[in-house]
């Protein structure tokens, strides 16, 4: 898994590349929390365009960040969701609580 982040005026855009499972859950959680703590006034967008696989370990990281930011009146949005990932997010009910951005997110600083 690799992650690339871009800081925009009102949001942190994090592009993730790789599978989100038990192996990658901890490093992803740590990276997202570091960004959330560093940029305390910004919302978070997770770009999943390069994620082919997610299971409940990966979902837990996303839902945990959603809860953390919601306590501070900040939001998490998901972008670039592929069909294989959408099936899992949908079954978990995540798409009813987290905003999905359908338009492509520009990836800078690659």
């Amino acid at each position, binding site marked *: 898994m690799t992650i690339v982040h871009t800081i925009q005026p009102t949001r942190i855009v994090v592009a993730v590349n790789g599978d989100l*499972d038990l*192996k990658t859950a901890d490093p992803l959680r740590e990276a997202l929390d570091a960004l959330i703590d560093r940029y305390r006034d910004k919302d978070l967008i997770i770009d999943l365009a390069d994620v082919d696989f997610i299971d*409940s370990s990966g*979902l837990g990281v996303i839902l945990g960040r959603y809860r953390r930011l919601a306590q501070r009146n900040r939001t998490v949005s998901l972008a670039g969701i592929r069909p*294989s990932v959408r099936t899992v997010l949908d079954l978990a009910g995540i798409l009813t609580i987290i905003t999905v951005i359908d338009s492509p997110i520009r990836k800078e600083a690659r």
Partner: protein
Amino acid sequence: MNRMSLRFISVSDNVGLARVAVAALASQADFSLQDIDEIKVAVSEAVSNAIVHGYPGRSDGEIQVTGMLDAGGLTVTVEDWGVGIEDITQARQPAYSQDPERMGLGFVFMESFMHGLQVESTPGQGTRVEMHRLVTISGELSRDAQ
């Protein structure tokens, strides 16, 4: 008809190893790409459970995954010889997980994405999960039927 067996230690790198191996076996049958994606999630959940719950704090536990293809579809077993589950009915409830970030969705995904799930566990001896996925033919005859 085909059969494979994979045995590995309880480290998180092997979650991906197991699901890719089972997916490669499943791709020999008439599963759609979406079917295989769903099988991968179910395998990932079962192996993650074995690592996290079967062998808490241990990276030397043994886990065995078998896959069997026959005319009825795919059967996957995931077995560990770890701590076992005290109350399987309770463990299969959504949101049972002790860890707030794991969501307790593992068994929900296994049940939703597979066509049948059996769990056997003995505290102190280990857990065995068996899952089936039927081949559903859409549009064309399978090779066997031609």
